[in-house]
């Protein structure tokens, strides 16, 4: 059976900033007494997605991967959407559309398919969306494997 993966894309205003090793050192601000106000706000903005992550993670079996991904993590994100989509036999045209929408604001991607974007749904609703998408993805995989088996 094909593996399933849920990708939760961080909203744009909550993504980490970093290119250049100095930039990555911003993490040291978190443990001191004088966290930069801009960085503090950025971390506060990450909390709603954190809640969604925890509910979705707790609501799904452990073998289904759930990942939070920064939209700027192109190195991982774009190949992952293509890989997941192909694994679940998404047509190339739909895959291309998902590839473009995959970096959407607070997008939720299930098996390479963008199932929510533009706003972060409440945690329970997000879990419902993900479950429904996983069901349809599993059904699609079953149908396709039956076809290829014939």
């Amino acid at each position, binding site marked *: 059976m094909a593996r399933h993966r849920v990708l939760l894309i961080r909203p744009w205003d909550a993504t980490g900033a970093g290119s250049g090793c100095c930039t990555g050192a911003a*993490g040291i601000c978190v443990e001191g007494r004088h966290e930069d106000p801009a960085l503090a*706000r950025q971390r506060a903005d990450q909390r709603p997605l*954190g809640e969604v992550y925890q509910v979705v993670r707790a609501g799904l079996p452990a073998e289904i991967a759930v990942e939070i991904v920064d939209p*700027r993590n192109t190195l*991982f994100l774009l190949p992952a959407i293509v890989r997941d989509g192909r694994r679940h036999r998404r047509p190339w045209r739909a895959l291309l559309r998902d590839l*473009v*929408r995959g970096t959407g*604001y*607070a997008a939720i991607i299930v098996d390479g398919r963008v199932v929510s*974007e533009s706003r972060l749904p409440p945690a329970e609703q997000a879990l419902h969306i993900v479950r429904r998408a996983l069901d349809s993805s599993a059904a699609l995989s079953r149908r396709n494997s039956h076809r290829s088996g014939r």
Partner: protein
Amino acid sequence: MPAIVVVIAVMAMFALGYRYYSRYLADRVYGLDPAYVTPAHRFADGVDFVPTNKHVLFGHHFTSIAGAAPIVGPAIAVFWGWGPALAWVVFGTIFAAGVHDFGALAVSVRHRARNIGTLAADVISKRARTLFLLIIFFLLTLVNAVFAVVIGNLLVAYPGAVIPIFVEIPLAIAIGQYIYRTRSAALVPSLIGVAALYFLIWVGNLYPIEITGLADTLGFERTRDLWVIILFVYAFIASRLPVWLLLQPRDYINSHQLFIAIAVIFAGVLVGMDRIVAPMFNDVPAGSPSIFPFLFITVACGAISGFHSLVASGTTSKQLDKETDARYVGYAGAIGEGSLALGSIIAVTAGVAATRAEWEGLYASYAEASGGATRNFVNGIASFATNLGIEFQLATVFAAVVVISFAATTMDTGVRLQRYIVQEIAELVGWRRLSRHLTLAGLLAIAAPLTLALLPGGGDAGYTFGVLWRLFGTTNQLTAGLALAVIAVWVLRRRRNPVAVIVPLVFLLVMTTWALIVQLREFVAADEWVLAPLDAIIFVLALWLIVEAVLALRRASGQSVEPDADAGPGPDSSGAGATGPEPVDKSQQAVGAESAAGAGATDDRR
């Protein structure tokens, strides 16, 4: 020798290093355990602590450590010949950077994912936290100074880059605003941003902007100094803006640029089959800095960089899904940085000149080598780009924009971080008013690097930049030394063989103190009364670090196996509680202290 042969050989060595040496480190030195419950699971909050797939985490980690520094250092270091520079990059990456980045990640994971500064206080001594803050203060001062000079030099040398660089700022803000307000996908707008940037490169190439006349009118001896002042004014303002407004969209555009630049380097080398024209060992002129210790100071990022320990322990360790993933994320991240340094070496030895004589003209002295390093890199990349059918002049502006964009992003954050460090140090010495005054702390954060960047001497680049770069490398290596000392003490406490950590630690401390002594003598002889005290202070910090490291290692060697301080009830606690020690292997069980300390604790294994 064809450059492609060198590229393949180095990549093969990196692969062997990853395959065998990192496995040795994982199994024998750091004792990674796939069943260990990492802080990402134990403290999972969906914000800082998120168990993350190793490939996702590698992407985050690598984009956080990759920047302009691994380009500049190697571009200077080939002054001693491409052989020594390449050897230090390769062996430094395999035996020092890999050990350091991987180790910082491993030790942080075993200590509630705390950063290396906090760990220094826990593992070495309380004083080490102050030492850490002081080293970081000087490191950031020098980072901001050298990158201001790098950008200033490039804007003078490539006036075609002025329009794209300065229009990129409102462009990035516009893209950020568009994505933020419309909540649309970031990919297409940022690709449009990259395309717009390349259009601006074409425009900038047609309409270069030189400010020599303005600088003369204002009484500046060097045009670069006016750029430096403009850059610090910009960095001060940018560091007060919300991160999402400018820094993030520009980062996003930069990350695309990084991939394009790497592709241009390696595809250009492959298509053009350029040959390395630089000598393997360069017969440097008398009076030049000697290869020992200065090669190992000149190339910091790209061989080993203390900044990586801040990234590894600051953010990456909080997201590590399995402890064994530290090998892939930490060690392979170091190899990625080494590959950037390799690209830089290839650009300035194969791309920048067609003949040996031409190359020797560019690297005739250390001052010319250091002052011209980024220009040589830019011209080298441009030469590779011509192999792919891009016009040379246009390609130089493209490459200059890549380097400037990275350096400018680093400056934005560097000033922001420096303000934070100023506030922390002010708090430490009891200057409450300063510690709570953002603007004043921000002004102090730019005062020191601005002064250094405006130091006279050496024409448009030359002496001053070369010296500042060496001081930056020295301080960066000291940060790495501090991290390696923390790692070594931790390894020793776990009754594992620390030689793989102690060898790079001793090597770095010897090279940095040696370099600081030589430079101090030079500065005093040359009446450099800004640089001499700076060098002396960094030297004192180096001695302090050596004393702390020796004392901590002696204490650790005399101790029985200790539980790691990762057992507290939560990430922000003082760590007094003991709710879960790290798992013990058979050798540790024989000693027994670790398991004894964990009596009544929760099981940290899965």
